[in-house]
């Protein structure tokens, strides 16, 4: 492997990890505050569609920026709907999360058909309307920013208490459910950006179900990273490496002309997450009150 291909490989890894890193950081905010978020997948999908939609509409005038903005707003609104159901109406977070994923999978082609008269794809964005590296740097910056926030600011402390012992937070005079609602909305914004970095940075259009499980991979990275921003970033890196290796080995004949079954490399993130959750490889403990609705007295 020469220097060029190494650079090429690293750049593919770093760009490839951007969408799941965004979503994992979003998951961090939501789950740390006590709300399970298996709807990351749907939030990403919403972001990826509305990102492209806005970028196409603002062709030539800051298109990628408008796309990113729209993706965040759409993801946030979508997440607010999720928050409404699980926090206000106390719907089961797993059931509602599954429903949100189905909803996003249905709404995106529905809107796509209305706007572009095609359920499959949006038109392609020209190169100048796309991002090259900005989302990647933003996601890295956010990971460090959230790490700093979690340790150095009151907000970080509150989020952590909301997920561990919400009653303690409530007796300290802070509204748990309001805090959780904002955390969920923020998670939608971040996941929306994750989706947008998929559609207006890594590729040039929205296509049906284009997130293809990345939201769940982000969830896995979050768990693998023990529900903390920087370790989750490490997990995203690890997953992105295995993904990039897998893609490069696809169909490549080695050892007597047989292609390598890349499926087993694809499974690594999921198997690793199960192992760590079972406590066989290291230990990852969920916030104590994760998934439990809080009844404000």
């Amino acid at each position: 492997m020469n220097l060029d291909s190494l650079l090429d490989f690293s750049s593919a890894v770093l760009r490839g990890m951007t969408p799941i890193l965004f979503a994992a950081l979003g998951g961090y905010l939501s789950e740390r505050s006590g709300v399970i978020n298996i709807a990351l997948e749907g939030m990403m999908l919403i972001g990826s569609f509305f990102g492209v939609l806005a970028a196409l509409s603002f062709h030539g005038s800051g298109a990628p920026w408008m796309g990113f903005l729209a993706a965040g707003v759409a993801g946030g609104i979508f997440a607010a709907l999720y928050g409404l159901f699980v926090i206000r109406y106390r719907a089961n977070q797993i059931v509602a999360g599954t429903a949100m994923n189905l909803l996003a999978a249905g709404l995106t082609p529905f809107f796509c058909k209305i706007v572009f008269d095609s359920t499959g794809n949006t038109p392609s964005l020209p190169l100048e309307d796309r991002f090259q590296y900005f989302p990647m740097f933003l996601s890295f910056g956010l990971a460090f920013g959230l790490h700093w926030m979690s340790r150095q600011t009151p907000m970080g402390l509150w989020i952590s208490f909301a997920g561990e012992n919400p009653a303690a937070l409530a007796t300290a005079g802070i509204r748990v459910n309001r805090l959780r609602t904002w955390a969920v909305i923020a998670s939608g914004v971040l996941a929306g950006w994750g989706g947008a970095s998929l559609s207006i940075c890594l590729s040039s259009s929205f296509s049906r179900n284009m997130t293809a499980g990345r939201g769940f991979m982000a969830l896995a990275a979050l768990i693998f990273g023990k529900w903390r921003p920087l370790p989750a970033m490490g997990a995203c890196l690890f997953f992105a490496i295995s993904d990039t290796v897998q893609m490069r080995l696809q169909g490549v004949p080695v050892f007597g002309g047989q292609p390598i079954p890349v499926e087993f490399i694809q499974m690594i993130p999921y198997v690793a997450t199960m192992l760590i959750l079972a406590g066989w490889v290291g230990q990852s403990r969920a916030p104590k009150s994760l998934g439990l609705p809080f009844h404000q007295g």
Partner: protein
Amino acid sequence: MFAIQVQGLTKAFGDCVANDQVTFSVKKGSIHGIVGENGAGKSTAMKLLYGLYKPDSGSIVMDGKPRQWRTPADAISAGIGMVHQHFMLSETETVLDNLILGVEKTAALGKINRKQIEKDLMALSQKYRMPLNLSARISEIPVGLQQRVEILKMLYRGAEFMILDEPTAVLTPQEIEELFRNLLELKKEGKTILIITHKLREVMAITDRVTVFRAGKVEGDLETKDTSVQDLADRMVGRRVHLTIGGDHPEDSKLGHTPRSGGGSLRPALEIKGLGLLRPGESKPRLDSIHLTVSPKEIVGIAGVEGNGQSELIQAIFHPNNPRHRSSGQISILGQDIQAFDTQAIKELGVGWIPEDRHKEGLLLQKSLRENFLLGQTRREQFCKNGWIRWNSVDASLKQGMEDFDVRPRNIHALAGGLSGGNQQKLIIARELDRRPNFLVVAQPTRGVDVGAIEFIHRRLVGLREEGAGILLISSELDEILALSDRILVMYSGKIVAEFARGEVDAMKLGVKMGGGHG
């Protein structure tokens, strides 16, 4: 000068009046005790004081002015602090972060100014002589220090009036002494302390004044120096629910009581030797070298204030193979060493269990009575053959049981959750007695049960004994213990601290023992 005056506070939950016209006053700079049995309304009163509940009527007067709290935040800003029985701490965070939650001082960029805070906290902990390692995580420090974190938390928020809910329940004797030293220090600094407990000896040791709660009402408001453990025990457990089968001196004939025939030749129903339970991470054993025998045709009563190891004792009997419930000692039931048994195997020996919390361990509330009757009986061929349930047979036995035990309504399809407490309990007893157990464990059999049913349940228990079963009765109702038991043991702090034969003891004496006194 009063720090707080509570006037006529009333709070009802549905039909249950938890606080009925509660009135008492707390002097500024004093330590004031609140005593009473479980369910007497102490905790409700404290939650009203702290703004967690809103009173139906009555008022809280501070510094001469009536006050109202919308949320605990209002109470906090008025200078009230509270240490809850279950600590409001996050185990994964540091002591410092737990201390400052909600009142974080920030510097530029909204960064928590931990250096400054650390200095403030060090000064505070020195002032009150409560040293703490601020950077340790809560999970790494013992319970006594966790409590100290809670106390400092109040001080850091500028609390002048401090409520401590059962502060000694989880502490070792040494830790209790340390706590009391700290409390006296706080009193010296002019703080007012309200301490809720049911340990009378501690009340005598530390308080200036005591308010006694019973059944949601204030039963007495006294200077500590004018009272005694005996007097408090009297007020706490004294003349109360008058059982039809008699109070302190039950008429044996009425219960069909015959003196215990020498069943000693038979194998004991239950034999416990040196049972101990020390959970990892806890400094104080929950059970401490318990020795105990229940003979056939004998009711052994265990008296004690709740939380002194009774629940753990029951769990150890039914889950002996789980290290969470037993760390040392030997248990035999009906002559069998049950060390390796699971619950199923124990019950198949012919053991019945009437659990203390019927909603948690006794019933499937969302299921019908027939399903509840079958629970735990599926190994009886009468009800279950080759894996198939014989509902006809279950229903027949259930109908008979409901007739015998007067469970109402007589509808086998009614949901268990819809029955009154008394009928739920009678259903459980009908179930557990249906297989004619040779050994029965009964915990709080008449809690939340109406008076008519109490007598009925008592008769049944005595009847079962007459048939030859051994019964272990655990109850915090002294009258019940005195009326039914052939022998009475007193549990305190995980140990059996006294044993009496029938008729050897009265409620006063037991009350003192239960409070940890030497009487």
